[in-house]
């Protein structure tokens, strides 16, 4: 590879800090430098792009290969007042976009549980937020994007090249490297959310309520306790909200209704030992979380940060899990497989797997991306420290449960899926690989994730 001014060998992990691997990290300054990284890699060295490294597993790692840091592609254009469109660099973070646009009264169409993701990462994972049941995932709001591939640069939109556009949406960076995107922002009157909160004793009553009335809310999410069995299975808190209007705010806040979220300044001030987050400390945390939630309360005013990104207050909270790290298991199943969600909670609780409050959401219709995660129905996400002996086999069992229900796990979170289940979970993976081959015939675009799951070799998931 050419000597980029900033190329250096680096040991990289995902946010979960499991399975580190070393790669040449290179930071191209412009599209020409980026194109020359891809064309000089013809000898077969694999390449993948990396944003802020927030995918939990190995999606933005490439052991022995080249990892492209896109932080130089961070420009943020103005929001077009009529259309709400904004042109941004793929390396721009949602944090920096919000800092620029919230004071002007514009918000991102979709935000995950953190602002610390880049636009490129948001496209590659086709991220979803608390509004998926209404607005779909991120790429449904991308009007166009520029994709650099080993065979050239492509301007993509649903009209220009729908096949490559949708393969890139949720394609885990395997179709090429996105450099810019045009995103449809939404207008907001204030930077506050008006929140309704309600506690439920068990997951049945929670899910019934979500089915009944989620459609009345712009944003909705539930926290489910998978550890205690007091009362019923899965006591939970349902939190739903709308962008607050100016008149909803207390008088003191009305004079300054649009405040940009600030970047976290706190850091974990010590080196956390393995096992700090264990069954006892996690259930204590879960208990506190419930105690602080009201039985039922409506119209509370929350800031954007506290509603959408509660963990962003501490910059490196992932360090609390110790050196072994942690993983997130997130799956989606269709509407008629509500029982799969319950069986999953049952499975974790019966094996006494320590897990933080799980996040339960309803998904709306998925978009056309062959590797895009959401399917209409339910999604459950679990944060699990690595360490408990039973965890690897419990998760393998969970995979079977999910596949049996026609569901899938989220690749942006994955760090341990059984490769032979990929095609069952993503039946269009072969079609996806054909699109990849069109723009990357030598199979240069690869990550630790894609090599682990054999994404670029569908059908022969492992060497047969």
């Amino acid at each position, binding site marked *: 590879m050419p000597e980029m001014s900033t190329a250096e060998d680096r040991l990289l992990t995902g946010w979960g800090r499991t399975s580190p*691997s070393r790669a040449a990290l290179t930071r191209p300054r412009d599209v020409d430098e980026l194109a020359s990284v891809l064309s000089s890699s013809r000898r077969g060295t694999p390449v993948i792009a990396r944003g802020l490294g927030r995918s939990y597993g190995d999606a933005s790692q*490439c052991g022995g290969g080249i990892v492209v840091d896109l932080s130089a592609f961070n420009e943020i254009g103005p929001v077009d007042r009529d259309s709400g469109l904004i042109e941004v660099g793929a390396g721009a973070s949602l944090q920096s976009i919000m800092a620029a646009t919230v004071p002007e009264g514009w918000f991102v169409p979709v935000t995950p549980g953190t602002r610390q993701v880049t636009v490129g990462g948001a496209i590659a994972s086709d991220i979803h937020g608390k509004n998926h049941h209404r607005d779909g995932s991120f790429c449904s709001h991308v009007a166009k994007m520029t994709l650099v591939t080993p065979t050239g640069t492509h301007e993509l939109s649903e009209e220009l090249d729908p096949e490559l556009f949708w393969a890139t949406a949720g394609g885990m960076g395997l179709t090429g490297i996105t450099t810019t995107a045009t995103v449809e922002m939404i207008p907001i009157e204030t930077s506050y959310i008006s929140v309704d909160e309600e506690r439920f004793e068990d997951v049945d009553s929670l899910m019934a309520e979500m089915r009944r009335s989620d459609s009345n809310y712009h944003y909705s999410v539930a926290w489910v306790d998978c550890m205690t069995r007091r009362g019923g299975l899965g006591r939970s808190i349902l939190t739903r909200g709308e962008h607050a209007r100016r008149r909803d705010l207390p008088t003191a806040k009305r004079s300054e209704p649009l405040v940009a979220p600030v970047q976290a300044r706190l850091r974990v001030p010590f080196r956390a030992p393995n096992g700090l987050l264990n069954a006892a400390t996690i259930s204590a945390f879960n208990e506190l979380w419930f105690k602080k939630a009201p039985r039922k309360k409506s119209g509370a005013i929350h800031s954007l940060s506290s509603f959408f990104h509660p963990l962003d207050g501490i910059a490196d909270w992932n360090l609390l899990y110790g050196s072994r790290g942690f993983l997130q298991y997130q799956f989606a199943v269709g509407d008629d497989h509500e029982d799969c969600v319950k069986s999953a909670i049952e499975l974790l609780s019966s094996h006494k797997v320590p897990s933080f409050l799980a996040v339960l959401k309803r998904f709306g219709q998925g978009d056309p991306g062959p590797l895009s995660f959401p399917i209409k129905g339910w999604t459950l996400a679990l944060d699990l420290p*690595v360490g408990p002996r039973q965890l690897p086999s419990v998760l393998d069992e969970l995979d079977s449960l999910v596949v049996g229900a026609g569901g899938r796990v989220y690749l942006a979170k994955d760090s341990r899926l059984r*490769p032979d289940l990929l095609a069952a979970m993503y039946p269009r993976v072969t079609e996806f690989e054909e699109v990849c081959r069109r723009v990357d015939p030598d199979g240069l675009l690869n990550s630790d994730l894609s090599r682990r799951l054999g994404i670029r070799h569908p059908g022969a998931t492992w060497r*047969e």
Partner: protein
Amino acid sequence: MNDAFGRPQSVIVLGGSSDIARAVVRRLAGARCKTVVLAGRDPERLSSAAKEALDAGASLAPVVLFDAHDVAQADLTVSNCFAAAEGPVDLVIVAVGDLGSPDSDERDPTRTADLITVGFTWPASALTAIAATLREQGHGRIVVLSSVAGVRVRRSNFAYGSAKAGLDGFSIGLAESLRGSGVIVQVVRPGFVRTKMTEGLKPAPFSTGPEEVADAIIRGIETDAQVVWSPGLLRWIFMIMRNLPQSIWRKLPG
């Protein structure tokens, strides 16, 4: 690639027909491991180990022959193994050693040299070659079968024990040299293991079986432990043992 629990998809085993290695391979192939390269001396035993790996879930199990007396070929053997894997290698297990027969061998200068060569020199040379390849790969794990016999060398098997002592120290030094490279080296220190290598010998206290050692290795891989003891209690026992005066050490059974 290794997953979040360290479960490999491809493994090379040097000393692939040993009882401990076979027990580990059965477990790995039952989980995620599809490629198992088995290297060793005895073609028949290796092919039966290969069949076992395939039955347990592997889809490719080539065999590579080598002789651990031939130090000059260690490098070549390692590259043959990597070639046979036909792709990146996630885990290399080094389970090479010769216990010898203390009664006859300890007075034989040639046999003594053999035991040290097979137990230390050859594996150290092979480890150097393995480390270089994995370093380039940017990821990988090396598990070295050491022994408590090397933690404190004793009368009954001092040639074997001192070779293990050398290998153990070498491996831990190698682990340090690989920090930050994405390559992990782990050392396994079993107690007396009832295997074909120890057949006919009187088991020492805290003896164990290959299945138990394999379980400890699998758990060690999951936790990245620098040193894996089997049984685990030996960690604490040897904290004391290694500091006993020689006069007491000499009288202990085993």
